[in-house]
């Protein structure tokens, strides 16, 4: 028998689920607040959503240390942008920046799964969804992280988004009202928490609309 000794990996998966839904004049972004490693819970109250600009928030799951590094880098880049342009970055601009930042580490990637939610220059809700190395797409709604396999098909079913193959292209924003979208997100997470051990404890919801930004919370199962 070979001697057992501890090995290490530069990556960990700290779990968590993120959802964003874009409407005609709002955007709802949500994530649970559980942080895990393996079968253990590290924290029951860790926020995965950060505000990157006035009209742009990012929800991220995956490896927390990479996520934190990514968040700090984007915050620094946004500061530089503000110094140079005297304005806040728009959500589509931040979307491109996030993609470039992720791709910059293509061969030692940030193990992070992000959705970007916000309002575009017309005030319309916008959601960008990413993989770990920066491929991205603007969509009407999306889910990322450990519970995404449970939530994404449910959203597909409920939101009946027009096929992206339709020509001319159809608007991807969902037909729901803001309150309906918030309710839908709550249902999604309550359900995902039942089956995904990495999702739970508390749900954080960030709503962006013409009145600004607003946060609310809902308790989730803690087991």
């Amino acid at each position, binding site marked *: 028998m070979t001697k057992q000794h501890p*090995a290490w990996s*530069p990556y960990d998966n700290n779990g968590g689920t993120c959802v964003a839904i874009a409407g005609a004049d709002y955007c709802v972004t949500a994530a649970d607040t559980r942080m895990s490693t393996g079968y*253990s819970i590290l924290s029951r109250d860790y926020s995965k959503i950060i505000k990157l600009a006035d009209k742009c928030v990012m929800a991220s799951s995956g490896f927390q*240390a990479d996520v934190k590094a990514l968040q700090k880098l984007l915050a620094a880049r946004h500061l530089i942008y503000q110094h140079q342009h005297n304005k806040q970055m728009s959500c589509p601009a931040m979307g491109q920046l996030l993609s470039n930042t992720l791709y910059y580490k293509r061969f030692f990637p940030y193990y992070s799964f992000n959705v970007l939610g916000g309002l575009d220059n017309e005030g319309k809700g916008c959601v960008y969804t990413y993989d770990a190395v920066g491929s991205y797409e603007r969509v009407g709604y999306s889910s990322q992280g450990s519970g995404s396999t449970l939530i994404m098909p449910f959203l597909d079913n409920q939101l009946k988004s027009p096929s992206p193959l339709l020509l001319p292209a159809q608007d991807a924003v969902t037909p729901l009202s803001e309150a309906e979208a918030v309710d839908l997100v709550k249902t999604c997470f309550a359900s995902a928490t039942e089956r995904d051990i990495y999702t739970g404890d508390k749900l954080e919801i960030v709503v962006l609309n013409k009145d600004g930004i607003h946060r609310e919370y809902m308790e989730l199962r803690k087991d």
Partner: protein
Amino acid sequence: MESIQAKQGLVGPNDPIQRTQLPYVTGTSVVALKYKDGILMAADMGGSYGSTIRYKSVERIKPIGKHSLLGASGEISDFQELLRNLDELILYDNMWDDGNSLGPKELHSYLTRVMYNRRNKFDPLWNSLVLGGVKNGQKYLGMVSMIGVNFEDSHVATGFGNHLARPILRDEWHENLSYEDGVKLLEKCMRVLLYRDRSAVNKLQIAKITEEGTTISQPYALKTFWGFTAFQNPTAGAEGSW
């Protein structure tokens, strides 16, 4: 000539870079919590060489500057090197002599960067760190892992502590714990760890940090009770072939 000289040392200039791929002497759990006036932190003093308990007087909780306490589990030498680095950092901070100082929040952020940068170089510091402190009436308690995972909480524990101590803390911890109740709670956690963690030793220190400053207790032992019948005859009721 140079190569001959180099061969006499452990590492020559042309030898491949050595990195920590496995720890040598390690410390086990650190447990810490917020209480009414500040932070309490506990750690035993064992230093394990694999499964041998090689050292029994290792100090694993140290004050950093005026406002912070650092506790570490994992590779002791990495922790001690980190302490030397932090000593220098605090020295340079004090040398400004301008009334500004690094608080626990700043140090936690700094340590997170150190740990994460070392993992990016594939040369990690093999530790889980607990940082607690009080500055300007703000209590602060956070953790960093060897690959840079970091968070704040009202109570934290590394290693086995996360499995065995935190459930107890989640049950019994509250915002207004008095100093006495905080110590009792930590001792309860450390006792469970002593019973269940084979590399824990019955010699520990409890440290306190408040607005007034830092105190680290003298090493002491917990009262234990090994008289349970299951301890005296562990195979009773589970007899095997030998």
